[in-house]
């Protein structure tokens, strides 16, 4: 049988695949995490409805609430980054605009995540 693989591929011994499912897997992983986190998030928002600033501040700074919010923020922003990347790859076919949008997508997801997490930390640790 003829060997079609390059020497490097043969040395690595991984065949054609072994990577490339990471995207799919992380999408599912965060999807599963998002279900309980979203339900808890809705409950937290419900507990905050109609509260004044002091009460809202106090509730969001409670350790279980703050921890769930941080997990929620991390999981949804990671999930939405993957999801939007798929949308971009589906509809934008020109290489440069596609790369630019994929970059902006990551910047947006990271910025939202960091800004939201920063707010939770500030509420929790004061100043």
């Amino acid at each position, binding site marked *: 049988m003829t060997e079609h693989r390059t020497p490097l591929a043969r040395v690595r011994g991984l065949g054609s695949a072994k990577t490339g499912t990471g995207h799919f897997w992380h999408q*599912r992983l965060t*999807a*599963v995490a*998002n*279900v309980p986190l*979203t*339900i808890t998030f*809705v409950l937290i928002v*419900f507990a905050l*409805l*109609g509260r*004044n*600033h*002091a009460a*809202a*501040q106090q509730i*969001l700074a409670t350790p279980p609430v703050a921890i769930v*919010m941080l997990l929620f923020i991390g999981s*949804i*922003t990671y999930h*939405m980054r993957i*999801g*939007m990347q798929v*949308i971009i790859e589906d509809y934008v076919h020109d290489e440069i605009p596609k790369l630019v949008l994929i970059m902006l997508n990551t910047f947006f997801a990271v910025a*939202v995540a960091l*800004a*939201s997490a*920063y*707010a*939770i930390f*500030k*509420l929790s640790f004061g100043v």
Partner: protein
Amino acid sequence: MAGSKAPTRPLSPHMQIYRWPLPMAMSILHRITGGGLYVGTLLMAWWLIATASGPNAYATFGAFINSWIGQLILFGYTWALLHHMLGGIRHLIWDTGRGFSQSEREWLSLATVVGSIGLTVLLWVISYLSIGGTQ
């Protein structure tokens, strides 16, 4: 290549040709709600930053979210969140290889849209009853 005539080979019909089956409509809605939630995270970030910034910023956010446009956006966000969550659960069921028969596909898709609208209305009714709709 002489004379460029329209290709005679069969072309795949596009979306608008079909009567939309429910699972197809739900698939499209899943992507649309996902896109909506993507933008909607800005609202969550604003809410959290406003709360962390102090009473004035919190009041500004409150004034926006309690305005009719704010309530409309929040209502849409609630529905998109629940619809995307229920649709996601349906996709996770399909990932296990289950629920692919004709009747199962139909009722899972119907459950997504009926469930999301029902839950959204229920949540909003409860919230309005419990706080009277305003601050």
